[in-house]
């Protein structure tokens, strides 16, 4: 059909490349999602302190990373970090390897990009906790920390889950851009395959389907999580 030729998929070499690519994509997504969640958490907690200068600095960070292309951020970090010239001796070969390689630069860049999006997601969750609920808890004698831990945080987490799902799927999709700085992830593996087989369209369609499957799986899992933890009346259809 359409003259598509997928016979190359039977070759174990190409299968190996693609599987390796998926594995690196998953690693990159996992590392940067975790780091992004941590950055987002600290950022949002920093905002609750209500210090005007900290607030301004966090806003600056968020807006700069949200309003510039992640591709350029990645290129920027790749070139600056590798320019720093830190090297590490490879224990196997004894050769000097750059300490900050492409994978590391991509992780740093994606973590900061995802972190900026996460700050926003967590902040909107914290903001959406009804004021009346907080006042009610305060009048029951909750202190600041207990109020946060027992009332504000549990409700906010549930409210921000849909937003967080968007951020994490977005981050997963953005990992494909790491191929531009030669991180050997799925997109890069596809490039290797079609340079070898000249089956550009087939390789791209296959990778497209793999990405859609992975992202759908991720968003489905997060939706399940959302349903599992939902409080009746909070964060549903609001």
């Amino acid at each position, binding site marked *: 059909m359409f003259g598509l030729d997928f016979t190359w998929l039977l070759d174990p070499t190409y299968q190996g490349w693609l599987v390796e690519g998926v594995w690196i994509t998953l690693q990159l997504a996992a590392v940067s999602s975790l780091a992004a969640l941590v950055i987002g958490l600290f950022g949002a907690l920093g905002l609750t302190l209500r210090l005007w*200068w900290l607030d301004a600095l966090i806003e600056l960070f968020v807006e700069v990373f949200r309003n510039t292309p992640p591709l350029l951020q990645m290129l920027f970090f790749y070139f600056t970090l590798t*320019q720093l010239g830190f090297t590490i001796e490879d224990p196997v070969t004894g050769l000097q390897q750059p300490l900050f390689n492409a994978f590391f630069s991509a992780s740093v860049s994606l973590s900061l990009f995802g972190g900026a999006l996460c700050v926003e997601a967590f902040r909107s969750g914290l903001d959406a906790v009804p004021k009346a609920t907080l006042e009610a808890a305060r009048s029951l004698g909750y202190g600041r920390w207990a109020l946060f831990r027992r009332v504000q945080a549990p409700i906010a987490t549930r409210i921000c889950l849909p937003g967080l799902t968007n951020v994490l799927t977005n981050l997963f999709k953005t990992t494909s851009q790491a191929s531009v700085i030669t991180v050997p992830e799925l997109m890069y593996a596809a490039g290797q395959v079609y340079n070898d087989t000249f089956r550009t369209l087939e390789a791209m*369609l296959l990778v497209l389907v793999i990405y859609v499957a992975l992202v759908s799986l991720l968003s489905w899992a997060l939706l399940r999580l959302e349903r599992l933890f939902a409080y009746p009346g909070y964060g549903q259809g609001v």
Partner: protein
Amino acid sequence: MVINPSYEQRKRLLLVGILLTVIALVLVDAARGGSAEWSRVIARLPLLLTGSAQGWPITGGFLLNVVMGIASMAIATAVGTLLGLSLLARRRLVRQPAFVVMNFLRNAPWLVVLFAMLYLLPYRLTLLGVTFEFSPLAKAIIGLSLPTAANFAEVIRGAVQSVHAGQWESARSLGYSTAQIYRRVILPQAFRRMIPGWMNLYALLMIATSLATVTGVQEVVTLLRTTLSMESETTLVYFYLAVLAMFFAYCYPIALLARRLENKTKGDSL
């Protein structure tokens, strides 16, 4: 007179202060004859902005990103409206395929869609006697507009569904047909709520136009990378900062305006 700025004012003051300091540092540097790095960047600025070294004619650069963004947004708005309305259709036969298409495009990375379009679209297509030629630029515009259209469809669906169900019922009880309800009751209200989402999407699309570098179009990232191959390694950082600043200067005001509008329309929920 005691000046006691509020929390928000102090915050804004600091942000404006940081911005002015950065601008001042660059200006002072330029006035002193300019450090070697910045003067290299300034020499290349017309190239990066317009694609030609003298700044005229416009053949690429950041302005091409703007053009691509506007063209893709126009296509995405048209296709997204159709897709969004199909999502709201009562017939399953219309709704479910639209849902599958939307989810597929929303879950696909922009870069991969762009690549796929690059190879999927033929160089030349004859349809009903009319020959279309797909240049890399046309392919990039189409490739960027597809994910945007899917996202816009979701914006439309969200906006229409946010209109209170009671309005449907009261309009129906007044004898309006479905088409009339959409045209006279639902869409005028939903339209107001779509605008912030539409603007956010435009800012997102503008940022994504940088991906068109993979199609070989002479947009700003392509030019940046070819320029850098001619520059010394110490100036790299300055060039990247300059192009990042271009995107920020273009996208941030749009995002800011979108947020203002969003806060304004948040109140009218009925």
